[in-house]
Structure formats: C-alpha cells, structure tokens
C-alpha cells in the first residue's frame, strides 16, 4: 500500500512476537538456540545463539599430547567421529610428512564413507521427523544401527570410535568384516528405495521442502556454506575431488548437484550421496591392497615447528584443521578446527527470513548441524 502503515491506537498492540526456540526444543538438534522475531507465524528476523555445548576443545588440545587429541576429535561431530579422526590424523601426517600405507588409505576411505552414510542417515531421520514424518526416523536408525555394529566390530566403540592413528590405523580388519560391509551395501540400496518411496514422491514432503530456504550458488559460497548445502545450490565443490586425500584420487564417483538450492535439492543431494558412498565403498573393498596399516611413525610424536591447514570432506561439509606446532613441546601450540556445521549454521538467519516457523525447523534439519561441532 502506498499510504504509510496504519497507526493503531493505544488500545492495540500488534508488536512482533519475540520467541525463543531452544536451547530446549525438540528440533534444534541439541542445544541450539534461535531467537525468532515473528510477525504472526512469519519469521522477520532470527538470531542464532550458540555456545551451550562449548567445551573448549581447542584450548584443551593445547595441553594434550598429539595422540590424545584423536579422541577429542571424536567428540566434535559425535555422529561422524571417524571422519573427524581422519581429518586430524591427516593434518598431523601432513605436518610431519608421514607416508601412510595404501591399505590404510583405502581403509580410511571405507570407514569415512560408512560414516558418511551413518551421518546422513541420522540427518535423514531427524530431518523427516522435524517435518512430521516419524517413520522415516526409525527406518533410518534401523540401518544406522547396522553401521554402528560394523564400527563396533572394527574398533569396539559405537559412537566415539577413536578409530584412526597418526600414520594409519590401529588395527586391521576383523575377519569376514569385508563381507559384512558388502552385505550392508546391498541392504542399504534396497532401503534407500524405501525412504524415497516415503518421501521423494510424497506431495506433502515436496510442498514442505520445495522452494523453502532458496539460496543461489554465489550467495551460498559467500556465506561459507560447504558440503551438501553448498552442492544443493549447484556449486561443484567437494574436497574429495578438489583436494583429494586418503585414497579418493583412486576412486570413481560423482558429485551430486542440486539446481534450485532449496531444501528439496539439499535433500536430493544427500540421498544421491548415499548411493555414491556405497559405490565408493564397493570400489574400495574391491581394490583394497594388502600391506601394513601403519606407516613409519616415530615413537614420540613431535612434529616440526610450523603451521598447517588441511581439510577433508566430512558429511557436513569442509572440515578443516589448522594446527600450529612450536616444535618443542609435546602438544600443539594451537589447534583450530574449521567446523562445517558452524559455518553452515551461519546461513540460517538468511535462509529463514520470510519463512514460517515450520520452515525454520525444516531448514535447521536441512543444514544438518551437530552442536558438538558448532560449539566445540
């Protein structure tokens, strides 16, 4: 309307409603707090408040030995501990110029991709649950359980694996583990169809996700999105392809891309990544060479003085480690994590603006943040 906004008398109060979503809220995935300013149900502005799970991992690492930090990285993205392990170990290996045996590299790929499937399953379950489709949640957890079993058999833990060592891996595969992994891949392919039957063609699901939280590629890059949220906007950026680590340069896989950059495309990208991960696991299982699993690592890990940054593609996005060693003490001088969840979460206020409360929930789900990693 061209006329100025109507001025209500003192009798009426039509202020915007400021509402606290979290830190205790069923769908903020932990302890995320979003302060929403609402006009009716429409979000006018959002302020993301984080830090409720801040444990000072970066500070703590400055007084832990290099090997001990592996298990701190478990607790960053606690639903995807193996990839965090890989990221940290590779960073230290880069700093110390340790050559990792090829078998270890292959195993890292297999474990990372299993972990990616597990993490994406958790995302799928919670994302669907947030939009009200609760059966998918239990289906996804059913399959995630299989992966946790595989990890348990490999390293004895189900969540915080501590499954990597600087220079390689702590142990070789247990007997007949490879068969079980392939069997899992077979099961998983069938189950993917099941999820897609419940969601991909579902009209309500389409209405809830299409056109929600649209962000174009350029803006997504500028806002620092990485991982599936960035690829959902059509930007071909995958650390596994751009800066190959472990044995990814020997794997053949596609990088699924979205077009519209909305919640649905982010969903589709992750659903495709399931299939790509299975493809990578199969290749790696087939091509896995014999040999040692631990490289030549000095008894006392004491990297030379210097700074190093190394990034890997975690299920959430680009997981980077920036480590400074002073070359003298037994622990890093500075240990910095570039958490993908943190940087992805940054885009939330931009994404939710103008959408409804229900979309806020869907968008938090579609960014797939883990607060352990956001707050560190």
């Amino acid at each position, binding site marked *: *309307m*061209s006329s100025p906004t109507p001025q*209500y008398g*003192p*009798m*009426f*109060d*039509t202020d915007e409603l400021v509402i606290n979503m979290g830190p205790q809220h069923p769908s903020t995935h932990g302890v995320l707090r979003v302060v929403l300013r609402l006009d009716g149900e429409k979000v006018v502005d959002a302020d993301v408040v984080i830090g409720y799970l801040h444990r000072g991992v970066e500070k703590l690492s400055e007084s832990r030995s290099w090997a001990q930090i592996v298990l701190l990285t478990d607790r960053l993205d606690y639903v995807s501990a193996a990839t965090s392990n890989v990221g940290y170990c590779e960073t230290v290996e880069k700093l110390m110029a340790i050559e990792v045996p090829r078998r270890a590299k292959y195993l890292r790929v297999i474990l990372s991709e299993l972990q990616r499937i597990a993490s994406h399953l958790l995302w799928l379950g919670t994302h669907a649950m947030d939009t009200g489709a609760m059966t998918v949640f239990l289906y996804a957890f059913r399959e995630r359980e299989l992966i946790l079993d595989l990890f348990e058999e490999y390293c004895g833990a189900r969540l915080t694996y501590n499954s990597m060592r600087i220079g390689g891996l702590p142990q070789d595969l247990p007997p007949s583990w490879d068969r079980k992994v392939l069997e899992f891949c077979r099961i998983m392919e069938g189950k993917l169809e099941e999820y897609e039957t419940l969601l991909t063609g579902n009209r309500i699901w389409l209405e809830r996700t299409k056109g929600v939280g649209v962000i174009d590629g350029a803006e997504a890059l500028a806002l620092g999105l990485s991982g599936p949220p960035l690829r959902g906007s059509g930007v071909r950026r995958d650390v596994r392809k751009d800066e190959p680590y472990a044995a990814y340069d020997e794997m053949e896989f596609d990088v699924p891309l979205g077009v519209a950059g909305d919640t649905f495309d982010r969903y589709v990208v992750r659903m495709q990544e399931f299939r790509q991960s299975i493809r990578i696991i199969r290749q790696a299982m087939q091509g896995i060479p014999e040999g040692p699993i631990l490289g030549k690592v000095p008894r006392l890990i004491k990297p030379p003085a210097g700074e190093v940054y190394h990034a890997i593609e975690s299920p959430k996005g680009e997981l980077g480690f920036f480590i400074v060693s002073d070359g003298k003490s037994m622990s890093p001088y500075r240990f910095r994590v570039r958490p993908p969840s943190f940087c992805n979460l940054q885009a939330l206020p931009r994404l939710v603006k103008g959408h409804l409360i229900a979309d806020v929930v869907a968008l938090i789900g579609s960014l797939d943040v883990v607060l352990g990693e956001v707050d560190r």
Partner: protein
Amino acid sequence: MAEAIAFYVLAACILGFAVLVVTAKNPVHSVVFLVLDFLCVAALYVTLGAEFVAAIQVLVYAGGIVVLYLFVVMLVNVKRPPEAFRAGGRHAMLGLALAGAVLVEAAAIAVWSRLSPAAPASAAQSLPVSGNTEQVGWLLYTSYLVPFEVASMLLLVAMVGAIVLARKES
C-alpha cells in the same frame, strides 16, 4: 411447571453471564462468558421445542463467531488502560441510554402482543410440512425468500470487503 423452572433458571443464567460479559476486566474472560451465555440461550430454545434453532445457535454463534472474537482478542492483545474501568464518562451515559431504549422496545413488544394475540402463532400450523427443521426451511425459502437472499448478499459483500481490506498490496 418443570418448563417454568427451567425457563427461570436459564433466564437467570443468561442475565448473569451477560452482566459478567460486560464487567469482566479481561476481554478473554468476557468472551468465555459470552460463549456460556450463548449455550444457555441454546438450552432455552430447546425448552421451547426449537431444536434446530438451538443447534444452529451453538454451531454458528458459540462454535463459529465467538471463536473469531477470541481469535481477534488474542491477536490484537487488547490493552485497556486502567482509566477505562472507571465509572462515568460519555460512553457510560450512551450505554445507559441505549439499554433504556432496548428495554422500552421490549416492553412495547410485550404489551403489543398482549393487545393483539395469536396472529403469528398460527402460521406454523398452516405449513405443508411438519417437523422443526422442515418448517424453518419451508419458511425461509417461501415467505422469507427475499430477506433471506438479501441477508446472504449482505454477508457476501461484507466478506469481499473484509478480504479487500485485509489484503496486502505486494
């Protein structure tokens, strides 16, 4: 006898709730009393043998319109300053005058019907259908067709007007 008792109890409730509607300090409480008032009115209709009107009363007034009142009251969060509760003022005088007018009108109708009784009561008997609902329907679509259509037209106009007012130019 039973009917008379029911009538006086219901009438007392209606009047009591009506007073509460206007005296309640919280607008939401007012609306709640209004609902109770309407329910009592519906019960009164039932004692008169007009089940259809009673059901419609509950459905349209208690179940529909007052929900919208409540909606509005909650949405705009009406804040009445303390001085609004003070007695006196022009509004109070105006209200008193209106109430007086309504009272006089009601009394006039009562007196008038006493003087010339039984004229409208026979209309129901002459209808070709029996049953409460059918009679209402018959009357609406025969004798009162024009007023009925005019009323519905009026409502339509009001609705369109409301939509036009509420629409935001994009």
